[in-house]
């Protein structure tokens, strides 16, 4: 029978079936970080059990770390305690850790692929919803809660029921100035912040195949913003070449053997999906969000709509009031005060190259504070080798050390009350970047252009 890519991987990982449609799913790779793991380790200690397969778990400190002076002890006591706890837990349970100061440290979803820990055909989980990022390599990757982190540590398995399958096909060619971030913001604006719930999404079509691995990660990353369990893309030669030579990728003949298997990972012609959507790449403009969920996005040339026919107007109005915006208003021209280029959505080397190419020789507006936070130590090093840090600094941007940073404002990198921040991250929720902060999600190119202009602009005009 014809199978979807998702089914091929899932079925190969069912270790046991429980009555009532629940599967015991074997997990190949488990990532952990400081925020969602301490209670799970406590659980193991309480039960007096070890980590079942410690070599399948890797840890990093990312959510709660400062992005300046990482060589010094963390100033804030609670954050320091949490990061230290991770170090102690990893030592006690024999888990490899890329902590602060390690040359591989970084945002968990940036370092997995970069180290070759993420490989096609795997099942991957992490106590973090944006685990969907890894799906760009053709894996089943999804976020879990802390109780489930404990389950995976204890048994390398999870109890899961199979989600429904959705395919989103984007065909055609993107306009200049339109990036993968715009594709995914466009899709979410069409399908809504709950449009993918209960589903695992496969992205397909010529516009997706044309994207680099970095750009594909941006798409899969935001699957969760539609409520989907995860997103994935069939691995092709780009995926194979991306992984060749990476630290934890197989080597030599083993690599060729693995690659031969990876090439069998695609949805068979005629495989059935529960839901299908089609979009045309030509219809997509540079996007920006105007509300407090990622589904509230529009093309930069468009005006903010009124309350949706379906759903409650109260939620919509509350959202616009929070943002200080009104229906009918255009986003282009809106003065902004902050720019954040970073997060697991857009902090890879390609994102930094795109932003740097735009700001090169320009200066940020005086009214704007702009920061660039590379996704990992390796990205930071590469950016420095290419002189991107210098380009950013000369343009008046702050170039920081790796971490989640202002994406969730857990450390001191926060956006003040009422300020507009053009952010390359994935969530514009109320208070996400700091209490009262107003987040506008956009691509790294749109963010760079906003920093220079001091207001939201249509990047296509400057190209």
């Amino acid at each position, binding site marked *: 029978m014809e199978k979807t890519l998702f089914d091929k991987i899932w079925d*190969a990982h069912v*270790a*046991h079936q*429980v*009555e*009532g449609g*629940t599967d*015991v799913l*074997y997990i190949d790779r488990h990532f952990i970080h400081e*925020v969602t793991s*301490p*209670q799970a380790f*406590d*659980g193991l200690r309480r039960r007096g059990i070890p980590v079942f397969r410690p070599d399948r778990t890797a840890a990093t400190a990312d*959510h*709660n770390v400062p992005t300046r002076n990482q060589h010094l002890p963390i100033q804030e006591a*609670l*954050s320091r*305690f*949490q990061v230290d*706890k991770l170090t102690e837990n990893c030592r006690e349970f024999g888990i490899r850790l890329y902590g602060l100061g390690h040359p591989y440290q970084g945002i968990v979803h940036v370092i997995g692929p970069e180290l070759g820990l993420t490989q096609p055909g795997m099942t991957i989980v992490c*106590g973090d*919803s944006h685990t969907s990022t890894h799906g760009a390599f053709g894996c089943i990757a999804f*976020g*879990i*809660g*802390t*109780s*489930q982190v*404990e*389950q995976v540590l*204890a*048994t*390398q*398995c999870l*109890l899961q*029921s199979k989600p429904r399958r959705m395919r989103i096909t984007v065909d055609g060619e993107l306009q200049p100035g339109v990036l993968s971030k715009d594709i995914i913001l466009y899709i979410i604006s069409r399908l809504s*912040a*709950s449009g993918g*719930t*209960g589903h695992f999404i496969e992205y397909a079509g010529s516009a997706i195949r044309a994207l680099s691995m970095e750009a594909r990660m941006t798409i899969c990353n935001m699957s*969760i913003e539609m*409520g989907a*369990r995860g997103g994935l893309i069939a691995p092709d030669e780009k995926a194979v070449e991306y992984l060749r030579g990476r630290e934890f990728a197989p080597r030599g003949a083993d690599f060729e053997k693995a690659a031969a298997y990876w090439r069998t990972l695609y949805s068979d012609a005629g495989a059935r999906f529960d839901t299908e959507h089609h979009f045309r790449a030509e219809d997509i403009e540079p996007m920006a969000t105007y509300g407090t*969920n990622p589904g509230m996005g529009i093309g930069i040339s468009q005006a903010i709509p009124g309350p949706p026919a379906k*759903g*409650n107007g*109260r*939620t919509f109005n*509350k959202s616009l009031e929070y943002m200080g915006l009104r229906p009918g208003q255009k986003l282009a021209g809106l003065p902004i005060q902050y720019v954040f280029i970073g997060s697991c959505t857009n902090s890879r080397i390609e994102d930094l190259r795109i932003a740097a190419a735009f700001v090169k020789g320009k200066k940020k507006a005086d009214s704007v504070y702009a920061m660039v936070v590379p996704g990992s130590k390796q990205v930071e090093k590469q950016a420095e080798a290419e002189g991107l840090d210098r380009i950013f600094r000369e343009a008046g941007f702050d170039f920081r050390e790796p971490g989640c940073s202002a994406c*969730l*404002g*857990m450390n001191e990198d926060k956006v003040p*009350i009422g300020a507009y921040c053009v952010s390359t991250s994935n*969530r514009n*929720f*109320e*208070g*996400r970047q700091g*209490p009262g902060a107003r987040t506008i999600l956009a691509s790294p190119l749109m963010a760079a252009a906003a920093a220079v202009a001091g207001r939201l602009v249509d990047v296509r005009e400057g190209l």
Partner: protein
Amino acid sequence: MGKFKKLQSTAVPLPIEEVDTDQIIPARFLKATTREGFGDNLFRDWRYEPDGTPRADFILNNPIYGGQILVTGRNFGCGSSREHAAWALHDYGFRVVVSSFFADIFRGNALNNGLLPVQVPESFLQDIFSAIEADPGASFLVDLEDQRFTIQATGQSAGFEIGPYKKLCLLNGYDDIDFLLSLRKEIEAFEERSRV
């Protein structure tokens, strides 16, 4: 985890849609390394002014409403996978959350922590809101065995879905780890099989 069979209680109405886990518990309160105490910061930025004074217009600060049931709009719990959201609701005293739709990860986290997500049709959800509006002291009955939610004032009721395995766990206070640990042999056999 405590057992859950039946609950009769008044309810707190929060008729907002797309309530994300950043609202339920903002990231800056996730620095604790235990599961306790998150209830104090439940809905922190809706509940308190930046200086810590309670906001009179937020439902949890209105003494008229109370109870162990939270009734809220569709797509509750979307966003971050933080289980702290379920811990905060439970720690505050809620045992049931009713909505017309739950985000997947939140639903799983709630079930793993003895917090029952009850999904009802949108029109029935509106009936619940109306019942609370008519009488903030209105009482509701949640019966897990029968999988039924009843508005006691009117006798209207709606069934709700829950997987048979999770139902068993809640009724008996079991958790997934005990079950998975009992499958060690099967898991090792799977590892053997798939090594080829």
